[in-house]
């Protein structure tokens, strides 16, 4: 069946709400409005206001209430409009959700799922466009996911809810309208990265909104006779270094594409891991394509220039291969 990334997310939410009475969705405008990205449209009518719970603009309060509700035996799915707004709730995510199990000596778990939109590309300006996945991926105690395909949009929620610990899911704002065929087996292993395209000459690692760009770059490179493997990281914490290293061992070259800023980025972490685990497999220094170190500008041409784009990925691969 063909569907959009948005519809796949909604299908997963509906299934979770149907299958488990402990599951509820909470966030700003998830109910009457239908979700700021229309993901939860129609769910209020189906499940009622107790389980599709509109909140005031109190990110700290309702994310923390989600943590408390998880402690109290429920399986909350909390939606935060964008990763930029999640900074208002960072205290409850980092100081409560991620720490409670450890600080209590293992007495409790926090089975909370946090969903939020991330990323640029819609001319929304600096306060709605950032990619701070790496901030969350830095924190022990939480799992960080980034669905980049319709199948993963459909398949990641159920295992995230089954995880007894907090899971943060980043939905790239550019992907909501992405359409694709939903495969018969859309189930997702939220411990593993996924090889999206085979190719022998270099490995391109990407996640979230950069995956379609990496795949497009692979197409263009193939047309020029260069075959690259594309790996969708999709689990940003804990990183699946086994899949990454296996790919590098096949291709001996690595390019990491990351919409985060270069300094302190996930790309930096991934390259460090590659160097640590397969330094002697490398035929060239690893390369990365990150966002320029500037707040995301409003003007379209500047925004595009700030972000990883297909030509930059193509150029990075060719430079690595010296072609």
């Amino acid at each position, binding site marked *: 069946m063909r569907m959009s990334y948005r519809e796949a997310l909604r299908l997963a939410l509906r299934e979770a709400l149907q299958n488990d009475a402990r599951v*509820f969705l909470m966030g700003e405008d998830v109910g009457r409005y239908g979700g700021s990205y229309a993901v939860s449209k129609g769910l209020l009518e189906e499940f009622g206001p*107790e389980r599709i719970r509109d*909140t*005031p603009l*109190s990110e*700290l*309060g*309702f*994310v*923390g*209430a*989600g*943590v*408390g*509700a*998880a*402690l*109290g*035996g*429920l*399986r*909350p799915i909390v939606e935060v409009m964008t990763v930029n707004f999640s900074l208002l709730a960072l*205290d*409850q995510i980092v*100081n*409560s959700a991620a720490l*409670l*199990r*450890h*600080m*209590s*000596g*293992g*007495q*409790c*778990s*926090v*089975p909370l799922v946090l969903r939020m939109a991330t990323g640029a590309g819609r001319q929304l300006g600096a306060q709605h466009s950032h990619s701070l996945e790496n901030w969350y991926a830095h924190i*022990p*105690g939480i799992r960080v996911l980034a669905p980049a395909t319709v199948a993963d949009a459909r398949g990641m929620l159920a295992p995230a809810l*089954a995880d*007894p*610990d907090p899971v943060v899911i980043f939905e790239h704002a550019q992907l909501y309208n992405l359409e694709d065929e939903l495969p018969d087996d859309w189930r997702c292993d939220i411990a593993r990265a996924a090889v999206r395209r085979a190719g022998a000459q270099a490995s391109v690692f990407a996640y979230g909104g950069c995956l379609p760009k990496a795949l497009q770059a692979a197409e263009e490179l193939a047309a020029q006779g260069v075959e690259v493997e594309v790996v969708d990281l999709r689990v940003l914490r804990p990183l699946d270094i086994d899949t990454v290293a296996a790919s590098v061992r096949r291709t001996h070259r690595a390019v990491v594409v990351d919409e985060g800023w270069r300094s302190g980025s996930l790309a930096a972490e991934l390259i460090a891991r590659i160097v640590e685990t397969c330094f002697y497999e490398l035929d060239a220094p690893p390369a990365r394509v990150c966002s320029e170190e500037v707040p995301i500008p409003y003007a379209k041409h500047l925004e595009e220039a700030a972000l990883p784009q297909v030509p930059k990925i193509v150029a990075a691969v060719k430079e690595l291969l010296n072609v």
Partner: protein
Amino acid sequence: MTRTRKPRASAERPLELRLLADMLRIRRMEEKCAELYGAGRIRGFLHLYIGEEACATGAMHALAADDNVVATYREHGHALLRGVGMDAIMAEMFGKAAGCSRGRGGSMHLFDVARRFYGGNAIVGGGLPLAVGLALADRLQGVRRVTLCVFGEGAMAEGAFHESINLAALWQLPVLFCCENNLYAMGTALARSESQTDLCAKAASYRVATFRADGMDVRAVFDTVSRAVRQVREGGGPAFVELQTYRFRAHSMFDPDLYRDKAEIEEWKQRGPIHSLSAQLKAEGRLDEEAFLALDAEAEAEVAAAVAFAEQAPWEPVADLLKDVHTPAGAAAGGTP
């Protein structure tokens, strides 16, 4: 050693004597903690509750065994009176694996989830959203339970207070917000941190019932919190109670206490909750010095046993360092309804 007659078993005592005995347990435990801190046996931050014992004692006695409690980093007394063993608390202070948080928490993170004691939170205001969520979970699961959330007046300047009390009032959740107003947020006096120093007026703006009690008078605290708990339990939505109190010791062991007048501290000490209650009970003919000393000796003996337990308890092996960051596969997931 003072000669004492054997006191009655605690459960058979009248309420006032139980309140007195529990205040003495907190006081003697914390005095010993201060001493052990000086001796280097307890490290990190240690926030003593000395002077404020009437608040936790009156409030914890007003709760049912099944109610939730969310507390702050000054929570030794609350944990003790919710039934966390003094030995487990002391072992936690020592950082031992036998501690109530396996030595991972320390003084500021005492937990006992089986007793529905959810910490021990060292972020000012950090517990308030959790309390709202616990109450929401009870509501959605049809459980009639009160969540009592303790915080200091300093937390009322945090956004977390406003967001949490608004959510609780909006959704009519069974949370009792319990502010222990000891007049100083670390070193900052109430009037220097709040434009509105009438804390009940501040809370009332969220359309919740408000209560105020003399936090140095344990019977007043018990009566007031009992009324507030009853109203919350009967479905009256959240409520707010202010307990007006004072800490006799510095904020923490690192605090030179330069921001308060010595005379002010002395004045409040005249109203010490243990001294006040025992004097009242003696005047009422319900307590004599011998009985008081017996209660005190009982508390001292419990402290001595707890310290001995903590001293001999083993350290957690360093090989276990990475334990309890994530829930192990196969462990029961998540919270308890």
